[in-house]
């Protein structure tokens, strides 16, 4: 019980930290903390395999991708948004939309029928974390993944292949599209780091 509230506060604080930082590098650090806290929350919900996957795939792969792109864009620690700042004008309406949506959803959650659980859920026991053959164990997850849900699992291979091909097509210089002047703003006079530093 105490663990949940500690984790909940840490989750919200790290998420706010991620969203409010000016520099994307600090945001990535906040996001790492957020994902680790979330992984521990998954463990409290008996989702052992998702706990492992959260650490390996999210903090291990996706965030490293973010760090690499930040490094590639050499945006370092500085904010790189130029032009007029629309934040003061947009802040109040956006916060109103967000808070209204949150209030609506929370009202639905607290007054809905979340409590109507099937009979077996109230009587079956999930067992301890690390125990084999109980709900949420890695063996239990694996059996479900490779029997009942085999087709969706196979389809993820297709999704990942499409992603790989898409990234290669997007990132390759094979077909440079001519940039038209009126679509692209001229390079500002402010000093920018070059995309790739010419160091010999």
């Amino acid at each position: 019980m105490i663990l949940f509230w500690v984790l909940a506060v840490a989750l919200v604080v790290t998420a706010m930290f991620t969203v409010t930082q000016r520099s994307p590098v600090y945001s990535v650090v906040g996001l790492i903390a957020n994902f680790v806290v979330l992984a521990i929350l998954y463990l409290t919900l008996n989702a052992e395999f998702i706990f492992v996957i959260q650490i390996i795939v999210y903090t291990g792969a996706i965030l490293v991708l973010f760090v690499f792109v930040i490094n590639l864009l050499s945006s370092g620690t500085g904010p790189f948004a130029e032009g007029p700042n629309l934040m003061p004008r947009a802040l109040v309406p956006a916060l109103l939309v967000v808070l209204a949506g949150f209030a609506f959803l929370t009202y639905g959650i607290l007054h809905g029928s979340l409590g109507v659980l099937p009979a077996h859920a109230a009587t079956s026991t999930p067992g301890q974390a690390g125990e084999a053959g109980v709900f949420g164990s890695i063996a239990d997850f694996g059996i479900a993944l490779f029997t009942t849900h085999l087709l969706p699992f196979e389809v993820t291979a297709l999704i990942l292949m499409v992603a790989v091909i898409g990234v290669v097509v997007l990132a390759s210089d094979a077909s440079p599209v001519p940039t038209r002047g009126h679509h692209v703003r001229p390079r500002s006079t402010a000093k920018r780091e070059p995309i790739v530093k010419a160091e010999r």
Partner: protein
Amino acid sequence: MIPMAVDVSNYVVLSAVLFFIGVGGVILRRNPLIMLMSIELIFNAANLALIAFSRAWMNNAGQIFAFLVITVAAAEAAIGLAIVVVAFRRSTTVDVDEVSGLRG
């Protein structure tokens, strides 16, 4: 039996909080990298709700679905970051307000 220490609605409300922090990030920020990170927060909010319901109903289909969501999130992050890199190459800025090449 080991009951859930915390009621499932607490987890779902926490998931809603995380979701709307992510929505606020997407709406308010102009840096596409931080927008993508906010989208990751939204994915994770959905995952938290799925896993909380999975635990409450003692049905691991929710965990399977969360696993698939993580896969899709990985693909989305890869494609999104590639688009950011391409946009940066073409227009020297990654401010999303400046990336208006598709505007009619």
